[in-house]
């Protein structure tokens, strides 16, 4: 029996771009596959979805669903698969935070900046980004 957890947003963050989600996944050691439309969970259970996120060496997938409002939700079996829970963070907050950072990077890049430095503050759990041009 699986324990699926679906997350549509975290704080004020919603996932609107698969491109940015793919970049966020890559930073967390995950891979977004937009060609796969079926996610495999615990045992033989699976679900039709719009994309699949995989973690190397993990037998369970993270499903990505497109919502009615155009945003994306992620669903994963975080109870049985500690690796997934660790990569996504509690309530997928690491993924959503990283996605938010990718939004910021995209905007800064459009304004002519590039990322000069990234710093993770483990005490405050804040991701700090320095941009330069």
């Amino acid at each position, binding site marked *: 029996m699986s324990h699926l957890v679906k997350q549509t947003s975290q704080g004020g963050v919603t996932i609107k771009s698969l491109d940015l989600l793919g970049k966020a996944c890559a930073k967390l050691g995950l891979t977004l596959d937009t060609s796969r439309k079926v996610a495999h969970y615990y045992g033989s259970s699976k679900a039709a979805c719009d994309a699949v996120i995989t973690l190397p060496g993990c037998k369970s997938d993270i499903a990505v669903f497109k919502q009615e409002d155009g945003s994306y939700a992620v669903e994963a079996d975080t109870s049985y698969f500690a690796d997934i829970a660790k990569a996504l963070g509690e309530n997928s907050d690491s993924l959503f935070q990283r996605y*938010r*950072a990718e939004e910021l990077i995209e905007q800064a890049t459009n304004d002519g900046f590039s990322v000069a430095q990234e*710093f993770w503050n483990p005490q405050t759990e804040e*991701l*700090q980004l320095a941009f330069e041009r």
Partner: protein
Amino acid sequence: MNRRNWLKCLVAASGAILASGVAAFASKPQTRRVHLLGQQLETVTILQDPWKVDLARMDQLRTDRMVYSVRQDGRIYLIKCRSAPAGRWITTSELNQLRMKLGFAPVPDWSSRDAVVDSLKLSIQHNRKERPWNDNSRRPITDIWITESDYRSLKSWSADESGGLLVSGAGLDRDLPSGKLLGLNFHYPATISQFA
């Protein structure tokens, strides 16, 4: 239509026109010419939502380096930015002066909190989840908790809607400004000097 009703209609119509004008003004980015660091800047455009990424439109402030913090709740804070014309970092205080000139709430200076804590001889407890014993508020728990060094009383600090730091707590032995917004006029300490 008698004279009284005609006047009512006139007042209502005037109010509607005024309201639509105000709404139209509020929904558009404000563009004004301002001074910062003693220099005439190019026209600065600041969008309405102070928490948007385009906070202070850094590009138009002619900055060449800026540092943001992305929190787990999804909020993005500008920590600091460097002015290319001035050739130095713009402090939060200066940035907030600019923002207040333009009619926007100051940005929180999260990077200065450690210095504030030091100056008040308090200690900071990150990621504490339970409330202090004397905090009966229902405000959301944040990751910022301040403990007085003598442990006789506890305070919790959290971000309020304007981004300031709100100090709360009861039974305090020291006369700290409970309930008062702090953190708005502090200059950057060296807490994030790894970026400098």
